């Protein structure tokens, strides 16, 4: 083993999850891009929390309010002191998104299962289609961390003008403006293609291995510090199309590399690419 992650406790292994899945202090949460996966089979005892159906407000483009969040935790058997372990498809990118949303509401003990759903299945670990029921809790939102981890467009504009580090974690063709969404996804959602001036392209997937696990500290440093030139003391903003892929980058920089000031711009390109008169850069 090489250099450890700065906050290794936020990442748990599939072994750890198997050992703790009946621990009443631990709740396993599946969050996927494909909403049917949980019902096809999940880690026994895991509950499903959907980024779209559960965590997003259905009217305003925003997250749910504190009251709704408390309801979701209560019905999922999550108390304020529960260790919540997220996992999911697509190298845990939706799991990181749910993790980030939980931090918006200040949930203390959040973790990610390294390798996500794919590694669990590839290792032939047990799956269940039974939807568990847990006693409801009295969850109380104790003030969130929104100001530290989330950023809105006006601040992003100042950040861009000041030349501070901005990471665009979308695919290269989205960065150059050739595409409005990842290759093969429906090309819609924003009126202009390109990136926020000053942003550097570092696709989110560079932080993960083929088996869905995160790359080592050395490999991550080689990318974010060696290539991009970030320093751990930098004030960094990451964005993508709607803030989901960038929450994985946020997770990597904040917890694995230990940067204290990283924020996710969840408005991301779907907002920026539609805003009137904001500056846009095109090309590589």
């Amino acid at each position, binding site marked *: 083993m090489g250099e450890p992650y700065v906050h290794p406790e936020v990442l748990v292994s599939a072994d750890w999850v198997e050992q703790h899945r009946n621990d009443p202090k631990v709740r396993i949460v599946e969050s996927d891009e*494909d*909403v*049917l*996966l949980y*019902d*096809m089979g999940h880690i026994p005892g895991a509950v499903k929390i959907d980024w*779209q159906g559960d965590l997003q407000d259905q009217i305003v483009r925003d997250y749910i309010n504190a009251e709704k969040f408390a309801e979701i935790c209560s019905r999922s058997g999550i108390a304020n002191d529960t260790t919540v372990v997220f996992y999911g498809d697509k190298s845990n990118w939706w799991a990181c998104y749910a993790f980030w949303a939980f931090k918006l509401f200040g949930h203390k003990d959040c973790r990610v299962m390294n390798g996500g759903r794919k590694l669990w299945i590839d290792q032939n670990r047990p799956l269940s289609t039974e939807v568990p029921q847990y006693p409801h809790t009295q969850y109380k939102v104790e003030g969130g961390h929104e100001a530290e981890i989330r950023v809105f467009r006006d601040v992003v504009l100042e950040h861009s003008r000041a030349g501070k580090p901005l990471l665009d974690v979308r695919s290269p063709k989205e960065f150059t403006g050739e595409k409005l969404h990842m290759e*093969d*996804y*429906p090309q819609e959602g924003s009126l202009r293609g390109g990136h926020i001036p000053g942003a550097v392209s570092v696709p989110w997937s560079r932080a993960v291995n083929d088996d869905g696990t995160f790359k080592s500290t050395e490999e991550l440093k080689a990318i974010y510090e060696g290539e991009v030139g970030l320093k751990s003391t930098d004030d960094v903003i990451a964005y993508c199309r709607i803030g989901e892929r960038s929450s994985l980058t946020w997770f990597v920089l904040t917890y694995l590399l230990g940067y204290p000031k990283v924020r996710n711009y969840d408005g991301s390109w779907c907002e920026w690419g539609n805003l009137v008169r904001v500056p846009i850069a095109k090309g590589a």
Partner: protein
Amino acid sequence: MPAALDAIVSELGEADRQERIELLIDFAKNLPPLPDRLAEHKDAAHRVEASPSPVFLFVELEDDRVAIHADAPIEAPTVRGFVAILVEGLSGASVEEILQVRDNLIENIGLPEILGMLRVRGLTGVLRRLKAEVTRAVMARASAGPAPGTQPTV
């Protein structure tokens, strides 16, 4: 609408949310494998572009009926389930019947309710591609000359 598709629409339309999820998973699990002769042609030309998961569509004309074969990964059950609905509901239908299937099929089988609006967009692309492939097959046949047994027009 072809009777087979009509039956699927009714079944899914009458199902509640959880039943609909289970039906869609059943469709995903029961998509017939591609025949060997097609399996080796899973290439860019047969891939549906507007889908986040690799979906492959093969359309063949047998007289005036359309044969549909398709493949999508089981790791993407939503799109695989929808593809299976198209295969089961529209295989053997006529060209006209397929071209008349409207995009609101996705709403009629209640998918936005279980998937959310953002996730159903890719599915519309699969249906459009199917119709485009059927049109292409008809054009290809027309340009290859009259089918055997038909009278050429003078």
